[in-house]
Structure formats: C-alpha cells, structure tokens
C-alpha cells in the first residue's frame, strides 16, 4: 500500500480570510508552534480527504516575497525549499489588484498552485462583478470562488487540489511579463543562474538580483560572485533609463500587470450610499469621537474580563483546593504528600486559575477584535502616542494585553514586523502592571496607605515604561519604526474561527508555561520542606532590610512572587499571620514593597514566554535587568520617603 500523504500551504495577504479557510480545512486537528528559531507563529493542521492525509501549513499573511519582514522570508523559503505539493493562494476578491500582485510573485516561484478567490460576498457588496473563469485563463491556474465564512466553495477547492496533485489537472502558470528592457536583463541573468543549480527558480533569482534582494545576493555571492556584479551593472542601466531604483521599477511593472488583470476581469458599479461598515470606520477613526469610543471599548473589555476572571478564578481555586484531603489521603502528609500537593498540584492550580479565567477571555477578545478589523483602527489612533516610546501603533495592542497578563502580551508582540520591534515591544510589555500587580497595588497600598498613592505607583510605572522604552529604542540598532498597515474593511468575525484560534493559543500557553510553573513551585516547596526559607531570608536581609528597609520576611514572599505575583501578598499575609498589614508594616514599607514587587521580575510564565519567543539569553537578560532596576528604585524610594 502506498502512503497517500501530501502537503498544502496556504498563502496570501493578511485579512483575506486565510485563517477561516485554515480552520475550516483542519477543524480540531491543529498544532500551533513557532517557525524554527523565529518569533513567527506556525500553524499546522491535518485533514483527511478521499483517502488522503493532507498536511496544511498556514503561511503568515504577507504582501510580497521580498525581505522586508521575517514572515516574507519564511514563506518564500518554505515554498522554495520544502516544496509543498500545492500552494493555495487565497485572494481577497474585493481588493483584487493588491492581492494579484502577490499572486504574480507566487507564480514566479514556479510552484504548483491554485487560487481561492475569497470574500466573493464582500466583492458583490462593493458592487464588483468578477469573471472567475477569465481570471483562471489569465493566470494559467484554476480559480475557485469561495465565501469562507459560510463555507462556500471549500469542497470544490479541496477536490480541485487533489486533482492537481494527482496530476489529473495540468496547469500552465503564466509568468508576469515585464517591460522589454527588464525582460532582456532577466533572461541574461537567468541563463547564468541556471548553471548554478540554486534552490530557487532561475528566473525568480534573476528578478530578485535585479531588485537588489539582500538574501539572494548573499547566497549567489557564495556560488558565483560574477553573477551578482553582472546583475548590479544591469540594474544600474535600468535605473538610468527610468530614473527610479531598479526595485521600484520592477515592483511598479508587476503592479501594472496585476492592475491590467484586475481591470480585465472585474466590473465595478459605484455605490451611491456609503454602506454601514464605512460609516463605522469613519466614526471609529474620527479625530475626536475615535478616542472616547476606543476608551469605552477597551475599558469595557477589561471590565468584562476581570469580572469574569475574578469569579471563575476563585470558583476554580476553591473547587481545586477542595481536592486537598483526597490527595492527603493518597499520599499522606509527609514529604511525598507535601511535594505532590504543595509542589505539583498547587503549581497546576496556580496555572489553571490564571490560564482559564484570564488568558482565555483575553485571547478571545484579541482574536475577536482582530477579525473584526477594529485592532488596526486602534493602532491607527495610538500610533503617534506609541512613537513616543519608540514603537509604532501596532505595539499598543500587546501592551494593552499586558495590562491583563504579560504572557499574552509577550506572545502578542508577534504582530510587529521586525525582530527588533518585537523585542522592544516585549520588553515594554514586561514592565506593564498586569492584573496580579494591580492586586498588590490595590490590596496593599490602595487599602492601607491611600488610593492616591496607589494611583501614583501606577503613574510611576507608566513613566518608567516611557523612559526605558525610549532608552531601549535608542540602544538597539536597526531600522526606524513606522506604521505601514492595511485597514481592511470591517466585518462580522467568524465566531468558530475565533474560538478555535483562542483555544489553540491557550493550549500553546499551557504547554509552555505549566512545566515551568510546576517545577518552580516544586523547588520552592523543597526549600520550605528543608527549612531553608528562613536562612534564605537572612541571606537576603542585606538587600531587603538594609537597602530596602523592609521586614526580613518579605525576602521569602518575593521569592514566591516569581511563581505568581499576587503570591507576594498572599504569602505576606500567611507569614505575618495577619491580613491587616498596617499592624506590621509602615506606609513607607508598603509603598517600597509594592514598587519592588511591581517591577522586580516578570513572573515565571512570562519568563517562559520570553524564552520561547526570544531565546533564553534575552529572557535571562531582561529578568536580571528588571531585578536590578526594582532594587535600585526601591532603595531610592525608601530613602526619599524616609526623609
């Protein structure tokens, strides 16, 4: 029996319904991870169809195959090197020109391909009539009209895919023709490249060399430097004729080709009345009204999440802690019992009471807003503000998530374009006071000092973010950041896709964070069992007592806080034997303690997220930096406030 297995990659612009199609195809058989060594999410899934096992790879949403972003690099490497059996190019029928620009580039990679002409309903709403068959003729590949959100055309898409892979349907992809001067030069270089047996198609390499693509240049230099210098010479010739850089000329001509195809196949009847989605867009990006609308939306989302989270968290906590007698019955109350319950189980409970009540709704809201199109409007409104800390508008979104929990905040930094922006944004996110930090601020300073001081701490934190963000922005070398973002039409999110996206991201978090949380809580339990807590508190006392002016016992609570920040407060109550902190700590001590707890370390789950996204070295660096920062500021605050 032969193995009937093959691979299909989904490629297309962002916001074309790619994830909806991915979710329709793969259902619950998904695996979310990262591309090896990259901060880019890799979504994979499997599907069984007509006796075949099909692996589906969801490539990142991109606009080109140049090297502007890591996503683009990953996508073209994948298509050219891994050689999927078929690429399904998902095209937004309502924004044909720009989508076809990408299609033409995919065709240049000479990979077996099929086009899913998606959002046909939206195109119709916009008054567009599209000749699908003609498009197929012009591109030389099959074109299947689809409306992913209602599942229309998906079966046809699969059937056609199988036909092509089985070889029953022969395709003859058309290649975009450039102007005469460029075609001549492309051919000249392509002939030289052909002899090198390079992994990419010769014509594609020739075009990229003319465009001055860094990555391709680097690799060809290793094989035959003569080709690169020849290409450079020819590119200069083009530049002299056109008065623009060669890359600009090629992009221009490719767009012309896309535009010509679009004009040939679509008929547009202009609409008289601006539709609802346009009016919502105008209102939500309005110079004045846009901001209050945003504030109300964001705050009500937070309110919803925290109300839901608080309730669910305590409910889950209570029921899970109810299991304690059962565990004690099974494992006893000796060392083993303590380790099983206090280490493993309390770790799991800690994870569960954060993951389900807070992270789940956070992800849900994130994907809901993203799918609807509102996130890009928020980025538009906040761009100017975010520039003040060296980031651009999109970074507001992970930051906003960070206020709930730093973990999705760090993972949310994936929406930034470059590795540098991702790292910068993640660094800023780890300084954002999360829900647990808010519990400490309000529960200690807010309740026992004054609400003004609690607010002041918040403001101090934001100022720190502002200054450190700027500093990191100046310190890290690289391209300047700027917002270049599509604001796709508003639409009703596809609930099933949003739910699946939420669920699989949650699972990813669980896999990543739970082992660390459990190990962490086991280690701390061991220290407790070995009666090392007090010696450690004593070792730390030069820092805690002398430098920060805190009671020695706080050294222990700060260690526990690594697991979950709110544990600092809970442990403080346990160890001091009272919840009336005013009896055991002075107001200054409470303020200093909160300030330190707020900044001193990202919790263990956040460290795990950082390590996963940026590697252990950077995670370690950020952690150590923040500990030192917290101690420095805490000490200064203690001295200032004691005057």
């Amino acid at each position: 029996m032969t193995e009937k297995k093959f691979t299909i990659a989904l490629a297309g612009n962002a916001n074309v319904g790619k994830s909806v199609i991915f979710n329709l195809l793969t259902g619950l058989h998904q695996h979310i991870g990262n591309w090896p060594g990259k901060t880019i999410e890799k979504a994979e899934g499997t599907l069984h169809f007509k006796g075949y096992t099909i692996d589906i790879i969801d490539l990142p949403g991109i606009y080109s195959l140049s090297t502007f972003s890591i996503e683009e690099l990953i996508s073209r490497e994948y298509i050219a090197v891994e050689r999927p059996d078929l690429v399904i190019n998902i095209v937004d029928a309502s924004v044909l020109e720009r989508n076809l620009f990408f299609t033409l580039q995919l065709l240049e990679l000479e990979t077996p391909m099929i086009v899913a002409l998606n959002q046909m309903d939206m195109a119709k709403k916009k008054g567009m009539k599209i000749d699908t068959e003609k498009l197929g003729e012009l591109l030389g590949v099959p074109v299947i009209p689809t409306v992913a959100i209602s599942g229309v055309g998906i079966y046809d898409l699969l059937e056609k895919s199988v036909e092509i892979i089985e070889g029953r349907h022969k395709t003859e992809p058309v290649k975009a023709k450039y102007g005469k001067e460029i075609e001549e030069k492309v051919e000249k270089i392509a002939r030289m490249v052909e002899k090198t047996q390079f992994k990419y198609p010769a014509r594609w390499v020739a075009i990229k060399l003319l465009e001055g693509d860094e990555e391709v240049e680097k690799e060809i230099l290793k094989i035959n430097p003569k080709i690169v210098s020849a290409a450079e010479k020819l590119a200069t010739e083009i530049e002299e004729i056109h008065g623009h850089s060669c890359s600009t000329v090629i992009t221009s001509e490719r767009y012309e080709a896309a535009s010509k195809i679009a004009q040939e196949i679509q008929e547009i009847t202009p609409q008289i009345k601006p539709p609802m989605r346009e009016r919502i867009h105008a209102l939500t990006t309005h110079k004045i009204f846009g901001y209050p609308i945003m504030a109300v939306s964001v705050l009500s989302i937070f309110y919803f999440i925290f109300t839901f989270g608080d309730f669910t968290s305590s409910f889950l906590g209570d029921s899970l802690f109810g299991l304690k007698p059962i565990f004690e019955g099974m494992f006893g109350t000796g060392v083993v019992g303590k380790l099983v319950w206090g280490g493993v189980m309390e770790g799991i409970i800690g994870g569960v009471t954060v993951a389900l009540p807070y992270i789940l709704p956070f992800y849900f809201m994130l994907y809901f807003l993203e799918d609807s199109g509102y996130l890009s409007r928020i980025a538009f409104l906040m761009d100017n503000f975010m520039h003040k800390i060296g980031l651009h508008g999109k970074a507001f979104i992970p930051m906003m998530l960070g206020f709930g929990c730093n973990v999705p905040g760090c993972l949310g930094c994936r929406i930034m374009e470059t590795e540098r922006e991702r790292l910068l944004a993640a660094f800023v996110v780890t300084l954002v006071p999360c829900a647990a930090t808010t519990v400490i601020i309000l529960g200690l300073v807010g309740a026992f000092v004054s609400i003004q001081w609690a607010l002041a701490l918040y403001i101090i934190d934001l100022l720190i973010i502002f200054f450190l963000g700027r500093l990191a922005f100046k310190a890290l070398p690289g391209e300047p950041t700027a917002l270049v973002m599509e604001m796709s039409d508003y639409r009703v999110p596809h609930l099933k896709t949003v739910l699946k996206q939420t669920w699989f991201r949650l699972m990813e978090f669980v896999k990543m964070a739970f082992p660390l949380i459990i190990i962490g809580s086991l280690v701390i339990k061991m220290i407790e069992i070995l009666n090392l807590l007090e010696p450690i508190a004593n070792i730390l006392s030069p820092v805690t007592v002398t430098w920060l002016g805190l009671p020695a016992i706080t050294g222990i609570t700060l260690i526990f806080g690594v697991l979950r920040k709110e544990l600092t407060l809970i442990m403080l109550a346990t160890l001091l034997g009272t919840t009336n902190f005013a009896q055991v700590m002075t107001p200054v001590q409470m303020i200093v303690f909160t300030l330190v707890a707020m900044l001193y370390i990202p919790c263990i789950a956040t460290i795990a997220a950082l390590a996963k996204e940026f590697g252990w070295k950077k995670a370690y660096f950020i952690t150590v930096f923040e500990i030192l920062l917290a101690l420095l500021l805490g000490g200064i605050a203690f001295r200032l406030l004691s005057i």
Partner: protein
Amino acid sequence: MELRLTELRDGESGIITSIKASQGRSWRSRRVGRGWGLKKRLEDMGLTPGTKVTVVKSAPFRGPLEVYVRGSRLAIGRGMAERIFVEVKR
C-alpha cells in the same frame, strides 16, 4: 506641483512621483539609507510611482495618515508619509 503626501488636504488626491528612502539621499543609492526597507514595504503595498493616492484623513496630534490606494485603505505613519512625494493639480 510636487508636494509631500502630508501636505495634501483631507480628501485630496495626487499621483506618486517618488519615495525617498531617507532624507537627502537620491534614488540611485541601492539599499542605502535607513528607510530602505520601509520604502520597499510601501511599494509592495501598492504605492509605486505613477499611482493615484488619496488622503482620506490624518489622525490628530500629527498622527498617521489614512490613504486610499489601489482599492484598499492603508494607515501610514507620518514620518514615512513625509517621504512620499506626489504631483497635485491645484
């Protein structure tokens, strides 16, 4: 006349003449200048020379521009928009 994209009034259209990779450098410099990647990005999004672009509005406090180009709506940071030159009939 030739203007920067940021100098256009709300609702005004122009034809793109060039995008400067960074202030003061000419088009001739290949991959030189700090904004090269962003220039490429803009072109990949459809803002190539000769294309008609319409400024819909800009966000307040010198925020980004909302532009309409090739049937899609884009947000472009102000710093980047200042490097886009357009020919306008006034």
